[in-house]
C-alpha cells in the first residue's frame, strides 16, 4: 500500500517536471521571445537588445531553464514584463482568490451532484431521471461564458438579487470574497454538476444491473438496504477519480468565468497578461494552474486508492 502511494506521488512529481519543461520549451521553440512579444514582433535594434539583456535572454536555453526552475522552487517566479514587478507578488493574492472560488464551487457542487446522480440512476428512465438528464446534457453543451452571462441576465438584471460584477478588490479579506462568489459559483457548479451527475448515474445503473445486486435481491434484502449497503459504495467509489478530473478541469473554465464576473483571480490575471503580452506572467500562471490540476488529481487518486476494496484484506 505504501508502495502504491509513493508511486503515485512520484508520478505526480514527474508530471510536474514535464509541464515545466514543456511550458519553457514551447516558448523557446516559437519564433521570438518574451521581449519581442512585449515590444511587438517588428521591434528591432537597441530597444530590443536592451530588453533582452535586462532579462538575460541572450544566455543559452539550458542555463536559463535551470535558473528559472531553480527559482520556481524557491518561490522566485521571475519578473513580469508589463508591470515590472516580481511575479510572485502579483499572483499570490489572486491564487488565493481562485482557490476560494474553486473550493466553494466544489463544496457546493459535488454533494449536490452525487445526490442527484444517485436519484437519477435509481429512478432510471422515469420522469425524475429524464428531467435531470436533460438539464445535465443541456448544461454541458452550453459554454461557460454563455451560462454565466445568462445567469447575470436573470439573477442580476432581471431579478436584481445580486450584483453581476464582483467589486471586491484582489486583496480583500477572504470572507468578503466568499460573499461575492454566489453567481460565479453557480456558473461553475452548473457544469460541474452536469458532468458528475451523468457519471454517477451511469455508475449506479451499471451496479444495479450487477450480479451481486441480483444476489442481494434473491436473498430477500429490502430495497433500501440494497441501495445503502450494496449499491452506493460500489457505484460511488469508481467515480472518485472522475470527480477529481472534473474538478481539475474547472480550472480551465475559471479563466472565462472570472472574466465574466470580473473576479480578481488567476484566470482574469491571465487574460490581462495576454492583452499586455506579458509572456513570463502567462507562463507562470499556466504552470501554477497545471500544478493545481496535478495536485487535485493526485488527491483524488490517493483517496480512491485508500478506499479501494480490492486493497483491503481480512486484517484491515
Amino acid at each position, binding site marked *: 500500500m505504501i508502495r502504491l502511494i509513493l508511486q503515485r506521488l512520484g508520478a505526480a512529481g514527474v508530471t510536474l517536471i*514535464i509541464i515545466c519543461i514543456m511550458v519553457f520549451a514551447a516558448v523557446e521553440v516559437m519564433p521570438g521571445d518574451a521581449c519581442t512579444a512585449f515590444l511587438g*514582433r517588428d521591434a528591432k535594434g537597441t530597444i530590443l537588445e536592451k530588453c533582452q539583456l535586462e532579462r538575460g535572454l541572450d544566455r543559452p536555453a539550458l542555463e536559463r531553464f535551470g535558473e528559472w526552475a531553480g527559482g520556481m522552487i524557491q518561490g522566485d517566479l521571475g519578473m513580469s514584463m508589463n508591470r515590472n514587478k516580481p511575479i510572485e507578488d502579483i499572483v499570490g493574492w489572486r491564487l488565493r482568490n481562485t482557490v476560494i472560488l474553486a473550493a466553494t464551487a466544489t463544496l457546493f457542487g459535488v454533494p449536490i451532484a452525487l445526490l442527484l446522480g444517485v436519484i437519477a440512476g435509481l429512478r432510471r428512465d422515469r420522469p425524475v431521471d429524464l428531467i435531470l438528464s436533460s438539464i445535465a446534457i443541456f448544461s454541458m*453543451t452550453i459554454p461557460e*461564458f*454563455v451560462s454565466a452571462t445568462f445567469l447575470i441576465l436573470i439573477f442580476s438584471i432581471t431579478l436584481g438579487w445580486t450584483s453581476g460584477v464582483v467589486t471586491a478588490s484582489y486583496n480583500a479579506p477572504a470572507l468578503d470574497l466568499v460573499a461575492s462568489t454566489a453567481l460565479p459559483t453557480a456558473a461553475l457548479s452548473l457544469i460541474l454538476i452536469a458532468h458528475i451527475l451523468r457519471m454517477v448515474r451511469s455508475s449506479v445503473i451499471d451496479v444495479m444491473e450487477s450480479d451481486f445486486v441480483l444476489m442481494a435481491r434473491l436473498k430477500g434484502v429490502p430495497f433500501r438496504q440494497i441501495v445503502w449497503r450494496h449499491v452506493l459504495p460500489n457505484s460511488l467509489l469508481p467515480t472518485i477519480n472522475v470527480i477529481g478530473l472534473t474538478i481539475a478541469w474547472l480550472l480551465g473554465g475559471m*479563466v472565462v468565468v472570472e472574466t465574466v464576473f470580473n473576479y480578481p483571480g488567476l484566470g482574469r490575471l*491571465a487574460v490581462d497578461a495576454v492583452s499586455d503580452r506579458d*509572456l513570463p506572467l*502567462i507562463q507562470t500562471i499556466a504552470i501554477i494552474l497545471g500544478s493545481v490540476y496535478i495536485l487535485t488529481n493526485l488527491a483524488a487518486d490517493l483517496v480512491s486508492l485508500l478506499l479501494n476494496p480490492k486493497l483491503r484484506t481480512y486484517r484491515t
Partner: protein
Amino acid sequence: MTDRAAATFVARRLGVLGAVLAKPSGAFGVGIVALHLVLALFGPLFVPYDYAQQNVDTMMLAPSAEHWFGTDRLGRDVFTRTVLGGREAIVISTLATVIAMAWGGFLGIFLALVGGRIDEIIMRGVDAMLSLPWVLTVMIFVTALGTSSSVLVPVLGFSYGLAVIRIARSAALDFVARDFILAAQARGERRWTIVIRELLPNVRDALSVEAAMQWSWMILGFSSLSFLGFGVAPPTPDWGLMISDSRGLMAVAPWTVLWPMAALSTLVIGINLAADAFAKVLGVDRTRKVPGQ
C-alpha cells in the same frame, strides 16, 4: 476495393443516416446542424445589411421590421451579424478538428497496439500536457504569436488532439486484447497493416462519433476564445465576440446578447443530439471518462 464493396460502403452509410433521421432527436439535431451550415455557407448572399456598417442613428434599436434582431451599440444589424457569426468559428473549428482527429487518432491506435515502454512514456507525456488547461496553452501561443487563424488552427488542433489520443487509445485497447489481433500477429502481419486493416475499421465508428463531439467542443472553445478577445478580430462578426461586446448593455438591450447566445447554443445542441443519435445507431457506448474541454 471491388465495386460490390464500394456499393456496400455507400449503402451502409445511407442506411445509417436513414436510421439516424428516423429518430426524432436525430432528425432534429441533423436538421439544425444542416441549417447552420447552410447559413454559414450562403449567408453572405442574402443578408440584408453589411455586417460592419455602423450607423449612429440606429444604435441599440429593439427588434423591428427593418432590423429583425435589433441593432447593437454601434448601429450594426444584429440579424446579419448573427447569421454570419458562425462562419469563422465553423471554418476554424472544422480544420482544427480534422487535424486533431488525424494525429490524435493514429497515434492513439498505434500506442494501443504497441503497448509496453513506448506506450508508457508517451502516455506519461500526454497526461502531463493534458494537465495544462488548454485555454492557457492557447493563450501562451497567442501571446507570443498573435491571433491569426494560422496560429489558432494548429494550436487548437494540437491541444484537442491530445485528448483524442486518450480516447482513440482506449477504444483500440478494447480490440487489441482480442484474439483476431493475435491471429494477425501470429500470421506475421506488419504492425502498420494491423493498425489500418484490423483496428481502424473497428474503432472507426467510435472515432466518428468522437469527431462530432470534438467538433462541437472546438466550436465552443473558439467562441470562448473570441469572448476573451483572442479569437476573431473585430469587426468580423463572431458569436463569442458579440456576446463579449454587448454584455455591458444587457440590461437595456438584451437582444444584442440573446440572439448570438441562441445561435451558438442551438448549433452545439444540434451537434450533440446528432452525435448521440449516431452513437445509438452505430452501437457506440458514450460514457465519457474525461469531461469536455
